């Protein structure tokens, strides 16, 4: 389907993956008041080797939870999460150790992702120790990783502590830690949202370039379509735990099909004085993950919702080069 990518089996596969959290304590459970928050509710997609895919949506849409399942910080409560043909949730012992050296996460907040008691050298040595890389090679691997993220004079940073570095430098260290074991798959969770605007571009460029050079498969989680477009050729849009649209980023930007994506694209602010101030094609409500509407979860804000949307959740429909979950786009029968 995707040109220029490996045509073999997918590297990552999610099949109706679910991540449900019980809410409320023992008392609530006894009273039958306890509910379940469906952070991720039946998400299905595949990533081919070398693909870079954006996971886009508002806070609470399940994009970060999906990312956490992919790197196994959380175990799927339903469905399957596969990496290279293996069920990720079932990994233990050596298999898990191998998985950890092949799959990495870049954290959102660089100010919290590094242990304040560790020097940069300690931080970068940790994954090497875990992967049983001989100590003699550490120095060279660390320097190489730091060069990869363009941290100029690496020797100067080695023995510093995180609080002595700027946000942009810290996020480069976080990236270096993720890249040091030469992973095949990297999940980046809003890696620039905590950074100042003037340094964001530098971090984004490093991410984009290293990914392309090393052919790393990547998921880029963000709420910002403009950033996703900068680093990803394909975008998956999520809303309240489900996928609403999945397709090439440029096509989604130019011609969004799902009503939610349409509102999202219209809402992205642009740094130009001349722009549309037309009202958004969306209701004023806010999604409530604890109590989503029946049928299509977007229907209470959707300007084009009709009877069927309240009854039945829309399944995937192939439209042009995209997958859309919307009754409007289902073939007429």
């Amino acid at each position: 389907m995707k040109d220029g990518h490996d045509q073999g089996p997918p590297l990552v596969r999610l099949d109706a993956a679910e991540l449900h959290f019980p809410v409320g304590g023992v008392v609530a459970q006894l009273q039958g008041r306890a509910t379940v928050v469906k952070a991720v509710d039946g998400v299905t997609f595949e990533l081919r080797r070398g693909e870079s895919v954006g996971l886009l949506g508002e806070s609470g849409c399940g994009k970060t939870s999906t990312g956490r399942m992919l790197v196994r910080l959380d175990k799927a409560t339903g469905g399957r999460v596969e990496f290279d043909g293996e069920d990720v949730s079932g990994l233990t012992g050596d298999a898990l150790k191998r998985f950890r050296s092949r799959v990495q996460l870049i954290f959102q907040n660089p100010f919290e992702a590094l242990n304040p008691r560790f020097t940069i050298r300690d931080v970068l040595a940790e994954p090497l120790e875990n992967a049983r890389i001989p100590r003699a090679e550490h120095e060279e691997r660390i320097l190489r990783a730091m060069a990869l993220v363009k941290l100029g004079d690496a020797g100067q940073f080695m023995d510093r502590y995180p609080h002595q570095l700027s946000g942009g430098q810290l996020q480069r260290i976080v990236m270096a830690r993720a890249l040091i074991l030469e992973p095949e798959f990297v999940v980046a969770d809003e890696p620039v949202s905590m950074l100042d605007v003037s340094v964001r571009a530098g971090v984004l460029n490093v991410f984009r370039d290293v990914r392309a050079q090393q052919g790393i498969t990547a998921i880029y989680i963000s709420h910002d379509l403009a950033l996703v477009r900068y680093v990803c050729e394909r975008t998956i849009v999520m809303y309240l735990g489900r996928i609403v649209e999945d397709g090439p980023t440029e096509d989604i930007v130019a011609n969004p099909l799902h009503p939610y994506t349409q509102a999202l694209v219209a809402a992205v602010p642009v740094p130009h004085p001349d722009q549309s101030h037309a009202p958004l094609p969306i209701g004023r409500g806010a999604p409530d993950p604890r109590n989503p509407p029946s049928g299509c979860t977007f229907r209470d804000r959707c300007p084009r919702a009709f009877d069927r949307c309240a009854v039945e959740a829309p399944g995937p429909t192939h439209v042009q080069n995209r997958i859309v979950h919307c009754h409007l786009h289902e073939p007429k029968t």
Partner: protein
Amino acid sequence: MTQPLLTLKDLSIAYRVGDQDTIAVEGASFDVQPGSIVGLVGESGCGKTTLARSLTRVLAGNARIAGGEAIFDGRDIMALSERAMNGLRWREIAFIPQSAMNSLDPVYTVGTQLAEVLIRRGGLGRTAARTRAEELFEWVGIETNRLGDYPHQFSGGMRQRVAIALALALDPKLIIADEPVTALDVIVQRQILDQLRELKERLGISVILVTHDISVVAYVCDRVVVMYAGRVVETGPMAATLTAPAHPYTMGLRNAFPDLASAAGELTPIEGAPPDLASPPPGCRFAPRCPFAEARCRTDVPGLDVYDGDHLAACHRIPEAETLRARAVVSETWEAPA
């Protein structure tokens, strides 16, 4: 031109850390016209929030006004007694915080909190306050039956609307909004920005909008004030400033922003990081990161000079701005600062 609603003249604010003064805002000057939205833009630590907060005279315990004045409606805010300032706050100058959750009391319903302001400060009776509260909620687009809800029952966007309703309660002339949409998702962000525009257009309220996002500025502001390392580096009408910036920092910011409306281009960072305000470099503070810096930039502090009409910039190379702009759009220019 009409009389400005607010005029800042050479305003400086200092923080005392240990036994040393750090100047967080130095010699800030700009006007706010009635019924306009002014965007105060800059990176974290540039002094924009300190400056905005000083206009309500709510500052951290170790901060003080180190000089200058802020003339609001003929009175110098910085020279007013605490009592007179109290009369001004909320009634004439209202504040919208970044996170409304921190400004709302979790144990009272939002209706009670709104009524409290209207009765205590606005001198309304209980029924009048109730009617006014409903009116305010309708205005900001929240159903009036939610007045009985507690802050935690609202989503982030809704809480921000409640904060706007609170700010509007006593018909202020000026609203200071400190990153009011930063924590929100794009759709909600857009809706709140539309709300701010409506305040301006229908009620004639002026807004000082503190933000780090020039897209937000482009969407709602009439004028821009760009700050860098405690100083105002550029100020002018929004459209002119964004399309034809005269300060290299503004030019650099423009390159660093992704733009969904045009073809996918290269983003260029500004290398380096803002200086430590405890020991700022002499001369222009942007010089260490500026690709166009010359010898004098590192020694002499540039003042705000006219670039074009009411478009001012603090740069020694203003006369060459057009040439610099042409060079600034090329990525390579920013790779190795001079």
